[in-house]
């Protein structure tokens, strides 16, 4: 299973490296979203600093939708999905591999967006390790659920509109927990609250990674 994971992750990342969709489209979209948020929240720096954690995670969520769409669409051409099923790859490995690829892209995006948030919104970080851990855990959760829902909506012509509608409510706990951790990690927050929410993220991740490993195979069979 792990060998297949590495194989699939490598394939997806290599496709990304060659096409550079992530860097040239998804990341700029995230930055644009942040800028729009800044316009919407207005010039008052205290409001923006307060809103920064939530807006960061919202931007990450939107970028996740794009990244997952991309992850699904690379297999929608030329019967590639059938090819994957025939290849004998372990479906659990397939799931983990695709999720890992999405997660890798998200991590890069989060660094970009995080820097953007600190610069544009004037957020001051007091407890950096909380930020890092929450980002890692949140990314894992988003990648796992995104890949799952991507598979569920794969092959449907309405995938572009349906996937966000299905996926975003499920991802809401990550948004909630991630925002709370960030709030705890900024000036004026209580770092102890942060660990509580980190635990929630951990549970969320564990559930959906386990679910994905088990359920991805049966989902693929019906596409």
């Amino acid at each position, binding site marked *: 299973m792990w060998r297949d994971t590495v194989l699939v992750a490598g394939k997806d990342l290599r496709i990304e490296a060659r096409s550079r969709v992530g860097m040239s489209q998804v990341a700029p979209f995230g930055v644009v979203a942040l800028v729009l948020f800044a316009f919407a929240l207005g010039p008052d720096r205290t409001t923006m600093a307060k809103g920064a954690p939530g807006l960061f995670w919202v931007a990450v969520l939107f970028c996740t939708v794009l990244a997952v769409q991309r992850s699904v669409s690379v297999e929608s051409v030329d019967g590639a999905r059938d090819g994957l099923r025939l290849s004998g790859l372990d479906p659990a490995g397939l799931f983990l591999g695709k999720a890992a690829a999405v997660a890798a892209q998200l991590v890069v995006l989060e660094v970009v967006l995080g820097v953007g948030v600190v610069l544009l919104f004037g957020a001051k970080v007091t407890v950096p390790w909380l930020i890092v851990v929450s980002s890692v855990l949140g990314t894992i959760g988003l990648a796992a659920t995104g890949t799952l829902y991507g598979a*569920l909506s794969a092959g449907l012509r309405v995938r572009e509109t349906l996937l966000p*509608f299905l996926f975003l409510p499920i991802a809401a706990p990550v948004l909630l927990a991630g925002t709370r951790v960030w709030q705890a990690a900024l000036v004026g927050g209580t770092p102890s609250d942060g660990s509580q929410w980190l635990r929630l993220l951990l549970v969320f991740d564990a559930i959906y990674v386990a679910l994905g490993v088990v359920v991805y195979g049966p*989902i693929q069979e019906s596409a």
Partner: protein
Amino acid sequence: MSPNQVVHSPLDQTPRARRTLRIIGIAAVVSTAFTVWLGLWVTPPDQVQGNLVRLVYIHPGVAWVALYLAFGLAAVSSLLYLWPRTRSLFWDRLAAAAVEVGVVFNACTLISGSIWGKPTWGVWWAWDARLTSTAVLLVLFLGYLALRRVPAEPDVRAKRSAFVALFASVDVPIVHFSVLWWKTLHQGATVLNPNLSPTIHGSMAWTLLLGFVALTLVFVWMLLVRYRIGALEDWLGRGELNVALLERQAEGGHLPVVASELVGAESVVEATPECEPEPVPEGVTR
């Protein structure tokens, strides 16, 4: 015809089934009317809440139906569909019916709760854990309904929907325990309170119970009707029927119904025939 498709005519509803459904419907209407009468007139106002307590006779009722009856049934049905040994489109149709009715009751829960909340807490809405998780639940199952409208093979659609239903119902225990896990505006459990015996009493308790029963009956009636609608839609939309009709059309036969593309569609386009092939015999069951 795949072995999964049970092709018997949904028109064949036994007289006993029809009568049972009618009785359930009447019981639902009567008990609901009785609850309203008790709730609005007979029972006294509460010492603390005043007349607002009257909303308590319906709000927990619709919430219970939505969360545990409807969405719980949807989750179980979805599981039964996914389990190879019990796989049958019956479970898929049942889940779909349960979700649609559940969404209606969920909306009623949010609305009745909001109306109760305005005079009590001063706001129409608050982002506490219970309200938020209930709203998320609504959106999750709206997603389920949206997914079902996408045209697909019945087995494919059933499998996808089943997974989505299962993921969505993970929110149900979250809603249930939200008042325990977080400090919420919404009050804790009164009837299912693990620590105390039920904390309301007298005629109010009976009215509350009647409210639960009445709304459950309403749910059952709606579920059964909605199930039948789903069965009829699937039957009308089955591929070989369309093929047969189109062959007849090619031969010059008359088509009383243009039955193309009925899968997932609610509307049936009826073309008036040039001549009735035969009058429909009296007494064909409803």
